[in-house]
């Protein structure tokens, strides 16, 4: 029997379009806060060992889906059950403590990834080496270029051993040299990890990494099947 790693049932996500408690609206009789339906009753399961590519046009709900799987966004309806340790690799270049050094930022991000204090100490030399930032790691990160931020964040985020890897458009990081290096690291991680869920607009990349494709549009699943059949279909209709 195959083990289900991810089980998504009737998953809907509504984004509120206003930052309010809705009190003023209720008083004025304007009804509930308007929402944007990002995911609309999506259901699928992912078994152990599967590599799933999520494709679809901008605003289809790909990133929302990944964030729900990561346990960051709560679903409005339905549920997403995920079995195993999850490593979300999203928007690398946000959330830095500008006045703190590269080393301290690595420590903070590792802690937030749920890595134990002592473990971080052990991993630090490896993370530092992979980033190739050298002595710049002693400098406050406000002095960093955008490429250096990506190096720091990527090196930290991938220094883990997760069961389930969720990647949102993570490639193309930094300069040519680092892009090649990070792509290689990704593949290594995928070999170690049991399950991969990956979103990208780069179909060659998706094809090379994933065996199964879920094509979504406007929050609904359009097609779900092997890469060889779904990608050509997607390309012929969307492009």
């Amino acid at each position, binding site marked *: 029997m195959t083990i289900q790693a991810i089980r998504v049932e009737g998953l809907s996500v509504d*984004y*509120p379009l206003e*930052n*309010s*408690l809705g009190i003023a609206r209720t008083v004025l009789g304007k009804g509930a806060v308007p929402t944007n339906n990002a995911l609309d009753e999506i259901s699928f399961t992912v078994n152990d060992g599967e590599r799933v590519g999520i494709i679809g046009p901008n605003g289809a709900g790909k990133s929302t889906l990944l*964030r729900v799987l*990561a*346990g*960051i*966004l*709560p679903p409005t309806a339905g549920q997403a059950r*995920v*079995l*195993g*340790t*999850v490593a*979300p690799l*999203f*928007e690398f270049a*946000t*959330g*830095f*403590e*500008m*006045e*703190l050094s590269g080393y*301290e930022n690595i*420590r*903070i991000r590792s*802690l*937030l*990834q*749920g890595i134990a*204090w002592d473990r971080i100490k052990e991993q630090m030399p490896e993370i530092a080496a992979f980033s190739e930032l050298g002595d710049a790691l002693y400098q*406050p990160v406000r002095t960093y270029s955008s490429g250096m931020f990506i190096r720091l964040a990527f090196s930290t985020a991938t220094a883990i051993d997760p069961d389930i890897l969720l990647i949102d458009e993570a490639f193309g990081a930094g300069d040519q040299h680092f892009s090649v290096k990070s792509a290689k690291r990704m593949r290594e991680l995928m070999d170690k990890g049991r399950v991969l869920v990956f979103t990208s607009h780069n179909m060659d990349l998706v094809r090379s990494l994933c065996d199964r494709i879920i094509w979504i549009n406007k929050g609904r699943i359009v097609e779900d099947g092997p890469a060889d059949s779904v990608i050509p279909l997607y390309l012929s209709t969307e492009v």
Partner: protein
Amino acid sequence: MRQSGVFHRDILNGFQLWRVWGYLAINDLRGKFARSTLGAAWIIVSFAIWAGGVGFIYARLFQLDTRTFVPFLTVGFALWGFVTSSFVESSMSFLGSAGYVKQFNLPKQIYVYRSVLAQTITLSMSLLVCLAVIAIFGSLTFSGILFAIPGLLLLLAAAMLHSFFSAYITPYLRDFPHAIGSFMNVIFFVTPIIFPAQMLEERGLGMVYRFNPFYYLLELVRQPLLTGSMAGMDVWGGALLYVVLLCIVVWPFCKRLDSRLVYAL
């Protein structure tokens, strides 16, 4: 996976991650004073300068006894700063950490604990100045410090509840920090901080402080530090009542907003 999402469990699980919020809080203070020569020692230095200067000026102005008034003013001001920051600074707990909240799936309460810890460290440093001031005027007692500790703990509980409320409401209601900031500025002048409570009593305005919960929170710590004996039952009663009421309001309120909070950031 550390599946977050259930409020009361997140509150506890988040608290157990003290290494995370502890490290963040300490680095917040370091970051705030980065590139200054004195660093975080500025908390002590600036408060000492304030206490020294304003203490004497006010004592002259109000013709009060310097020996009792300057320690009274210093302790009150330090505690008031803590109460205000539990509303105003904590309002940014989630918004200021939005990058983290949207990226990592740890219980988001750690960002509230982070704010409260940073404020508590600031308070502790200010209280060191207070102890020095009390010692200078010769009324520092060991029993006073000892009896202040339970009071400090209840004050901390109140500050934690203020922080939770402020942190949760602000993403939805961005006017809150400004509104509460101006509100606290007014309350400052009707709370016995720059004048003793008897002054209100003598003028028949006793109600002004007796219905002010912040008076009780301040007295819990101020009274033992200044007199060397435990705060009275009336003070404890008022403070406990406030904290219990606060808990009854804040807990369900935050619980309700908790699950959808990420969307408001």
